[in-house]
């Protein structure tokens, strides 16, 4: 199963899309997902990530079928 990648808020607008799917081959961590999804661009300094809806760092492991979200610092409340 592919990895589902989602982008939110200003990051979604910069990337130009809300979601995409990536083959899981060669993707071991959240950082790998970012690299593939952004064609090798460096992640913004303040980017946050979540794997299956739980906050995760760039070195967090990713598996087949996971959903990986990327977003800027949160500003609710």
């Amino acid at each position, binding site marked *: 199963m592919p990895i589902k990648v*989602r982008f*939110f*808020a*200003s990051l979604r607008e910069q990337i130009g899309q809300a979601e995409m799917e990536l083959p899981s081959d060669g993707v071991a961590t959240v950082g790998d997902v970012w690299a593939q999804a952004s064609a090798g661009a460096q992640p913004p300094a303040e980017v946050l990530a*979540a794997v299956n*809806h*739980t*906050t995760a760092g760039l070195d967090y492991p990713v598996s087949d079928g996971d959903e990986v*979200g990327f*977003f*800027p*610092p*949160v*500003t*609710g*409340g």
Partner: protein
Amino acid sequence: MTIKLCAEAFSPWAEIAEYERASLEAGAVGACANFIGSMRDNNEGDAVVAMTLEHYPGMTEGALETIEREAVAKWDLLGCVIVHRVGEVRVGEPIVLCACWSAHRKAAFESCRFLMEELKSRAPFWKKETLASGETRWVERNTPGY
């Protein structure tokens, strides 16, 4: 413990009254601390006319539940409620309600503030403002809570 995301305007007082009616025993409660965040007509010196609240469906609810569970583990609470708007918000409308009930005031005050600070740093919501000039911009950071 209740979590609610609202796509339409909500009344904090109606939410509180309904929670008290449905979930609390009046004689046990000695203290209710609550906080309502609402939309201002200005931010960082600019007039703001509209706001959109984006969130991460699926993750948002879980993040708020985690924060509530942490509060319940840390303080002796009889109940707590978080309600948060999503979508289009108009000036003056409530954005967030956090309410905590306890036998005594210390737990109610501290847990209510905890919920708000954790929500503002960990729950996946993002604000996009429309200025009076027509320009739109993402709010990049929160004002300090302490």
